[in-house]
């Protein structure tokens, strides 16, 4: 074998290493986004960086290869998109362009996932391009005659998976104890995380964790009852938000608290009692709201749900029923004869009349329930949005009628990289790399019934 010259070896290896370094540098540059503005655009017809194909597939039609038209058509809504920017940004603006009867007009509704564990979407007041956005005023709730009690009370109830509670406290200790059971129905570890936030703050005051029971298999071997406590001393007067984050394998079997006023914010999943109790008990609650979405996962739990004087027959498992009570005002009695039902309402659920209060603004927008508006774009603060289990931001576009899409743009923004904020820019990249993904419920986002 002929010996290669030293100079050739040196130069060729250097060139090869340089090629790798250049590629890494270019990718790094794209991930850092030094300009502070990342535009992700899709016309739905071809895969684009950072954005998923829209789902569910039954709500849009792609152009055929032999068709004259080259644009996709939305035939129903909402249509969901997952977008995963490469580093952290402050704000995103979603813009949708479509053609209708040859004229350019705007979309109907645009929403963004704001809670990953109860599928809540934030729907901004949609506006035509160029109009200024009116931000809603901060809503402050106060009791005029609230007296702290402090005594611990335990409620036995079977709740499944993640829940968000709102509790009132005034110069008193906040204390919650959840007695949980891991039913191990699905493969994977099932830790529990509880966080308490004051008002609408994005940063929690305190966090508590309970590790998996040690059985990560999906063998349906239920664990012993285990408790997780959360305490925050001398809480100033305000509404506190408590997030109980867990997978659908985790059941709350009892709830002990010192708070006299606490409610479940818009979502309550009454769990089944399989593997815990032989007889499913009838459950009586209090709810306030006039739009309900309910679904039961099991055929054994088909039942009649009674809210106030109205009843809803749930005849099929896994079918999402929606019913409206346009005249409902104030708290209503809600009765489930068997439990095992997941419920959402544009208001709150309470375990008793004593615990009931409703600190939410009167005009509550939930799961796309926004008043009709002509929309072209909507902006969201990313700190107010949640991520999916895959780390993506999830958006939906809900056309009022079938429409042809020109393009959908997601513009992520943050301050441009300058000498003074270089480290901050790099921190935004590293925060994405090291961020924690929380367990969520089983992914049923794209159900045709939703």
């Amino acid at each position, binding site marked *: 074998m002929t010996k*290669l010259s030293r100079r050739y070896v040196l130069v060729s290896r250097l060139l*090869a290493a340089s090629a*790798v370094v250049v*590629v890494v540098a270019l*990718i790094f540059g794209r*991930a850092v986004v030094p300009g502070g503005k990342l535009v992700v655009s899709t016309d739905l017809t071809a*895969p*684009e960086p*950072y954005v998923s194909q829209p789902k569910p597939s039954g709500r849009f039609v792609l152009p055929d290869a032999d068709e004259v038209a080259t644009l996709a058509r939305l035939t129903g809504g909402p249509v969901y998109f997952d977008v*995963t920017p490469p580093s952290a940004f402050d704000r995103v603006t979603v813009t949708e362009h479509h053609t209708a009867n040859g004229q350019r007009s705007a979309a109907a509704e645009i929403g963004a996932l704001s809670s990953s564990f109860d599928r809540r979407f934030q729907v901004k007041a949609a506006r035509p391009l160029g109009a200024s956005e009116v931000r809603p005023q901060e809503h402050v709730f106060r009791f005029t005659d609230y007296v702290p009690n402090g005594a611990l009370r335990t409620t036995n109830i079977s709740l499944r998976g993640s829940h968000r509670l709102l509790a009132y406290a005034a110069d008193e200790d906040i204390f919650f104890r959840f007695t949980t059971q891991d039913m191990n129905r699905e493969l994977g570890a099932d830790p529990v995380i509880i966080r308490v936030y004051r008002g609408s703050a994005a940063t929690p005051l305190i966090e508590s964790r309970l590790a998996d029971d040690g059985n990560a298999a999906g063998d349906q071997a239920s664990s012993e009852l285990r408790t997780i406590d959360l305490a925050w001393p001398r809480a100033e007067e305000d509404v506190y938000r408590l997030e109980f984050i867990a997978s659908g394998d985790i059941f709350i079997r009892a709830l002990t608290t010192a708070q006299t006023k606490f409610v479940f914010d818009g979502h309550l999943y009454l769990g089944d009692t399989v593997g815990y109790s032989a007889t499913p008990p009838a459950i009586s609650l209090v709810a306030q709201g006039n739009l309900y979405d309910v679904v039961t996962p099991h055929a054994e739990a088909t039942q009649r749900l009674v809210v106030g004087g109205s009843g809803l027959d749930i005849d099929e498992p896994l079918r999402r029923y929606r019913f409206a009570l346009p005249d409902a005002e104030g708290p209503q009695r809600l009765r489930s004869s068997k439990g095992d039902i997941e419920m959402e309402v544009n208001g709150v659920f309470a375990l008793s009349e004593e615990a009931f209060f409703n600190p939410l603004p009167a005009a509550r927008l939930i799961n796309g329930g926004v008043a009709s508006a002509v929309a072209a774009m909507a902006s969201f603060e990313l700190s107010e949005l949640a991520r999916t289990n895959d780390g993506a931001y999830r958006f939906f576009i809900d056309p009022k009628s079938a429409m042809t899409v020109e393009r959908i743009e997601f513009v992520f923004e943050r301050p441009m990289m300058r000498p003074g904020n270089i480290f901050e820019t790099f921190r935004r990249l590293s925060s994405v790399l090291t961020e924690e993904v929380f367990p969520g419920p089983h992914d049923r986002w794209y159900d045709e019934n939703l």
Partner: protein
Amino acid sequence: MTAGMMKTFNKYRPYVADLGRLLAATVLVIAIIVIICEKWRPGLAVAVVSPKVLVVCFVLGLALALLEEKRQSG
């Protein structure tokens, strides 16, 4: 091909084979980086390096290296 040309070609043959190996190895390293980046953020790396170009370069490099190996062993 004249005898002179053949002589020159044979002189640089080992360099061609080495370049082939180096090209294949470099492309392999870049491909691994691209795959990791794509797993993390789909679309991030393929916008910088085309997968088609990577495949062509890898096949070219491998072909050059293997042909030379075969000649030497033959």
